[in-house]
């Protein structure tokens, strides 16, 4: 959903981020435009999560600039426009007493309504997002009783119920089978198209990234960015990140007509 006329929602320039004494992300520079569907890929330990946490302000970068919606990150204070689902979100205590509806409602809790009850409008938004992520059948169930794929969708619903314009997802990979994962990417595609939501997702599923997304950010210490267009050839980008012996067979017909440009 690249739209050249749109203003960037995120601009990163010359970003270095360290963890302890190790420089993990080196010289990241890229722009993400409104309505893009962006995949962040790269080997384990390559710095994908570090990059995300740096952008979100959880980790302090060594140098470089970050602009969110045109504003410098250090003075950015419109965090309700940004949502984030962490890698560990789904690893919660399964006995925690909370229903799906209660969980999603937590997305409406924040500084603006501190100490006040959620109103009818809040609950309306909660139920709309439960429907949007096809969770109606399990809305009254406890979150611990859900399958991996359902949990993922609950956390996305919780993130989206605040009405953000930019969604960051650090993809949880454990315990979700490929079919369910594929359905999840399709759902995100759909939200990206229908709501004009900008989605940035850390992913291990290269096929999903190259079939569905409009841009790929490849993080392996250094950061390389490519637009994914018709006839895009990822081998060189992938070899830079994963090494000379890495082979990724990528057939456009496997995208089954779901290619983001199709």
């Amino acid at each position, binding site marked *: 959903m690249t739209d050249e006329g749109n203003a960037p929602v995120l601009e990163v320039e010359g970003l270095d981020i360290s963890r302890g004494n190790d420089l993990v992300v080196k010289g990241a520079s890229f722009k993400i435009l409104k309505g893009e569907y962006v995949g962040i890929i790269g080997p384990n330990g390559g710095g994908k999560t570090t990059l995300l946490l740096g952008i979100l302000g959880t980790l302090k970068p060594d140098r470089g600039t970050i602009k969110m919606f045109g504003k410098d990150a250090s003075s950015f204070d419109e965090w309700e426009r940004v949502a984030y689902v*962490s890698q560990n979100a789904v690893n919660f205590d399964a006995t925690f007493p*909370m229903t799906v509806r209660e969980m999603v409602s937590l997305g409406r*809790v*924040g500084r603006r309504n501190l100490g006040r009850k*959620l109103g009818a409008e809040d609950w309306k938004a909660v139920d709309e997002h439960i429907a949007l992520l096809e969770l109606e059948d399990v809305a009254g169930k406890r979150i611990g009783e859900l399958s991996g794929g359902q949990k993922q969708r609950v956390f996305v619903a919780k993130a989206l119920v605040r009405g953000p314009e930019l969604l960051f997802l650090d993809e949880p990979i454990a315990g979700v089978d490929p079919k369910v994962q594929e359905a999840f990417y399709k759902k995100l595609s759909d939200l990206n198209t229908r709501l004009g939501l900008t989605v940035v997702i850390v992913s291990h599923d290269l096929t999903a990234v190259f079939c569905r997304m409009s841009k790929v950010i490849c993080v392996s210490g250094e950061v390389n960015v490519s637009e994914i267009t018709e006839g895009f050839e990822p081998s060189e980008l992938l070899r830079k990140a994963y090494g000379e012996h890495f082979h990724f067979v990528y057939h456009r017909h496997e995208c089954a007509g779901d290619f983001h440009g199709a």
Partner: protein
Amino acid sequence: MALDLAWLGIFGYRFFQNALLGGTLAAAACAWVGLFLILRRESMLGDGVAHTAFGGIALGLLLGISPLLAALVVSIVSVLGIAYMRKKGIANSDAAIAVIMAMGFALGLIIISLAGGFNVELFSYLFGSILTISSGDLALVAVLALVTLAFLGTFYKELMSMTFDEDAARMTGIPVGAMSVAFNILVATTIVVSIKVIGIILVTALMIVPGLTALQLRLSFRRTVAAAVGFGVLATLTGLLISSAYGVATSGVVVFAAVGLLLFVAAYRRLA
């Protein structure tokens, strides 16, 4: 067989009405705060702080000021001390509780020896004495319990969010640091509230058992809170009635009633 209702006459006595009021409020506050402690995996925090309250009680008796007020101050200092040690990485939760608990008890012991012996009154704080609660203590218990319940009710959704995931709660703009301090102070006030009802030694039972019983039912968050409060109040009322009818220690019967409910509900969940 004619039903003997003579025992109901006890409800007409002022001391029993006071005990009912104080007991119900303390049990409700205890169960609600305790549920959060269980979910935050800090079940032993209540026990640790209660033991430091012992030092506070002894201090109050020595100085001739309200022992409950002195216990309140010492408990608040202790709970914040535990939080500080954890935050600064001096000790993990268990170890910090152990240190503060020993300190509090040692303080009590030193004061008792300074005062020249064991004060009989101290015994009533160790094991509770709800049936002989004074109107001054009742007023303190009622006010503290109501403040606690009001706070928990007002910040219900924020506390639920923090209890589930503190980092995520912080990102939504909830002032997690300030709320944690406030919650820790509530733990201290709740313990002081319960000292008269159940005593320092058994306060954990009133904090943890009702919440644990409610969790067996696998309900929503809202209903789990309601069930925990219900079980806590039920156990306390049962304890009050049985103990006054048979002249046995109230706190002992309250604990038996609470644990009895837990066993019944746990068995019911597994058999039904």
